[in-house]
């Protein structure tokens, strides 16, 4: 049950986490994002790897990030993601909502 709740939390905030990290890292790719989430959350959050690419593609289709293919070490290619202006706006809005939400939850917990 604990794992289910954690998975729900991650699922509900995947877009926010991905957008935030893409902005932080300026330009990044799927595998790096997966590892970065794991590292920054000290292993608390682990993306199901197969769900990250659909989430990235959804963000790309919505115009929130832009995917660019670049050569990487000789012939190998990688698709790098960069946040767009629209993505910055959505991220700012979502971060604001997240802060309001966590403040409200804190207030409730603090009052008990």
């Amino acid at each position, binding site marked *: 049950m604990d794992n289910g709740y954690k998975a729900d939390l991650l699922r509900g905030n995947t877009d926010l986490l991905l957008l935030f990290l893409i902005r932080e890292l300026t330009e990044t790719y799927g595998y790096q994002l997966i590892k970065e989430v794991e590292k920054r959350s000290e292993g608390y959050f682990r993306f199901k*790897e197969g769900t990250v*690419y659909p989430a990235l*593609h959804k963000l790309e289709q919505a115009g929130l990030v832009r995917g660019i293919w670049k050569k990487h*070490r000789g012939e*190998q290619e990688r*698709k790098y993601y960069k946040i767009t202006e629209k993505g910055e706006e959505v991220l700012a809005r979502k971060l604001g909502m997240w802060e309001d939400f966590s403040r409200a939850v804190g207030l409730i917990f603090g009052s008990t």
Partner: protein
Amino acid sequence: MDKEIQSYLNEIHSHLHLDTSTEEKIIKEIYYHLEDALEESRNTGLYYKEPFKDITQTLGNPRDVARLLYEAHSRGSWEEVALHLQPYLLFIALFAFHLCYSFFPLLVSFIFTLAVLFLSIRRGMGNWIFSWGGFLFSSLVPLFILSREFLINVTKASILMLYGRVNISQWVNSLNQAVLPFHNFMYLTILFFILLLGGLLSIHSMYRTLKYDWLPVSSMLMLLPLLLGWSLILKRTMAQFGLLSSQVEQLDSIMIYSLSIYTLSSLIFIRAASRHIKITALGAGSVFGVIFLIKNTIGIEDMHTLLFLIASTLVFLFIPLLVYRVFFQAPDLDAEFLKSLSKRKEVIHHSMYQ
């Protein structure tokens, strides 16, 4: 390339149902993800008994991954919705202004649709063109039903002329007498050839699409039952009351509602991400459109016509699936493409774990 990875990528490919260029980019991205994962496992010195199997397992079930990726790409934008619905709105306008029996409005509509279809095929087919192809393809049905006599007369008169039994003026005369609902057989011939050209272009785009997905092809065919129903009822009404009767005008009004139901379902079809919702919207829109048409014209009591049209809806919905399964079921990824992927880098390959 390792067989485990190849079969994993093939499994994703066979369930993606996206156009070739999008699919190749997705497969490439996933392949490089697997390379990164293998390389990291080598660098960290982790031991895997079956490295390729373990790495693909961390990505998850390929069918689920393919489904999620399909959903990420299949949802049409509002611009696509606007373009997709244009032919249906054009049909509604033709019925609303009772222009379905006038040559010039039909000619302009068909030429415009044909030009858009031709240009969009040349520029690489957006998801919205299927409705334009469907518009032209489906319009052939009423033309055939309403001018069956014409076609029979053309054949008869032409055979007689070949044997010298009638001269040219008699031949023209016999054609003119048979033409319904137009008063000049030339009008019908012009429209017929424009629609035939449109139909051929539609078949060409259906063939191209069936190589990766059957659902857009079904969406091209789903207007057929509705127009089939309308043509059959119109033929009866014209025979009984004539073309300029109030009954025909009333039929046009009912068609506006039926087409609106179908247009609404098409909107859901384009905007939905899930494949199941798309299929349901497509089938339900056509079935409800047909039921509305029958209920308000010849009545539900005419069970034969109603059942025939509902059955034809299901046939047109699932025939492309059958054709896809039998002839086009996504073949494995192109060997050249796979080769181009794996030769880009000297990947870790077997040596590291052997």
